[in-house]
């Protein structure tokens, strides 16, 4: 498949890149690893005038500084997976990075690119020929007038299927966004809009310049479980990230559950914490009644419609099932 024509630019540093984005951001696509963007370009879901290669513009360093793990957005997923400091302090991130695509994608793809992944839909990620053949023409996200997955709706329901955002949000991460106007740091959970059409708050003249993960004061355990069609590759149909923080005196002091793949943004389930907070770690082993209650709570959280592989009901139920499995694994029962 042939790429559409674009100009290629590779800024040598951040200043040069931000100046370029300031002037040409609206007609520019920014490329980190390119493993998803180039597929989209080939499918003509995007046709930018310019492709801006971030490889020299942004850092890919991984370091601990001032009570944060600081990750440069160009850190390759394989670097996250193999980093000694991440394996030691945040094994959840190393584990999650190992679930993205195959080794080939991990050695090309970056953490920044994975966070900024565009939302996906069975009716959007298609070739122009397929779209033309579909009755009703282009969908909302492709610039048409209606959503084919949920006819009559004026909102895009494309799914956010990145792997790294869920565990990073569960770890209370922040993201630094920089433009020639200045820089800001926002909680990663607020980086996502929840609208499938424009899934992130990043403006065309901005670049993600750092991901910060706070070092927890106490003990922390985390797990990321992913449901996908092919174990070796594929985006998550459901991705469940769970982080449990404990304190010898007070028991469970933190419980964060974030689910990817069931909405246009990663879904934080704060109500799930009510089942466990201030209780002994043995409370992670739920009795059957509570399990059912938790599953119902999770099933209500997502907006699963028929726009991905697997029926909406299957994906909804699997979000609950994976959460229960995550709980069992984290409590050491499985």
């Amino acid at each position, binding site marked *: *498949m*042939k*790429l559409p024509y674009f100009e*290629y630019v590779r800024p040598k540093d951040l200043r040069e890149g931000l100046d370029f984005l300031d002037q040409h951001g609206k007609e520019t696509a920014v490329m980190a690893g390119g493993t998803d963007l180039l597929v989209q370009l080939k499918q003509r879901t995007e046709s930018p005038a310019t492709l801006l*290669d971030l490889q020299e513009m942004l850092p890919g360093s991984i370091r601990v500084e001032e009570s944060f793990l600081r990750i440069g957005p160009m850190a390759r997923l394989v670097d996250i997976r193999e980093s000694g400091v991440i394996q030691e302090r945040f094994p959840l991130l190393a584990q999650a990075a190992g679930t993205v695509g*195959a*080794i*080939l994608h991990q050695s*090309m793809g970056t953490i920044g690119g994975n966070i900024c992944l565009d939302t996906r839909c069975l009716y959007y990620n298609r070739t122009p020929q397929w779209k033309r053949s579909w009755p009703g023409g282009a969908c909302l996200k492709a610039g048409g007038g209606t959503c084919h997955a949920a006819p009559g709706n004026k909102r895009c329901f494309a799914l956010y299927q990145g792997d790294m955002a869920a565990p990073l949000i569960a770890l209370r991460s922040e993201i630094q966004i920089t433009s020639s106007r200045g820089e800001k740091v926002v909680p990663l959970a607020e980086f996502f809009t929840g609208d499938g059409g424009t899934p992130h708050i990043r403006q065309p003249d901005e670049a993600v310049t750092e991901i910060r993960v706070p070092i927890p004061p106490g003990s922390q355990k985390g797990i990321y479980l992913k449901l996908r069609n092919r174990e070796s590759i594929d985006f998550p149909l459901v991705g469940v990230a769970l982080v449990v923080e404990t304190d010898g005196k007070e028991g469970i002091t933190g419980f964060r559950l974030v689910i990817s793949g069931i909405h246009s943004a990663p879904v934080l389930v704060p109500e799930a914490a009510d089942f466990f907070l201030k209780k002994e770690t043995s409370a992670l082993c739920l009795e059957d009644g509570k399990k059912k209650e938790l599953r119902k709570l999770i099933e209500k959280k997502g907006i699963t419609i028929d726009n991905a592989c697997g029926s909406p009901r299957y994906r909804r139920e699997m979000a609950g099932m994976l959460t229960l499995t995550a709980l069992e694994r984290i409590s050491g029962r499985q």
Partner: protein
Amino acid sequence: MERSLPGFISVAFRINGETTRVTVPPNTTLLEVLRNHLRMTGTKEGCGTGECGACTVLINGRPALACLTVAGAVEGKEILTIEGSAAGGKVLHALQRAFLDTGAVQCGFCTPGMIMSSLGLLLKNPKPSVEEIREAVSGNTCRCTGYHKIVRAVKKASQQVAEEEK
């Protein structure tokens, strides 16, 4: 990277140990550079969307998908393709010998990608376990061999390399 003719970019990189420069439209992929401009057709195009791994090459020693790499991105990089994996272009690499010996090749279309992914693994981890081999080639699709012989070949090659180094 130099600007050359309007609508073209000039990219310099090292391919299989030799410095080269190509002048191509900016929307050219590395795969197109290899196959159409350098006439190195060992690297294959399968899906063109990064799902089959037939176009795997090593960029700075790491396995990468040539179909999802734009030409400009390899400026200044070291690229190794299947043509460069045999020493001097004549003596087969231990991996290539092992693929032949164990019958890990049938139609041969996936083989260059399989070998480059395996080579990426062996460069990083000379004594991989079967699990590690399976994971290393998990992004490469083979529709003939059923993978067992491929995994066996990589294991055999790693043992041969270890013996040769003794």
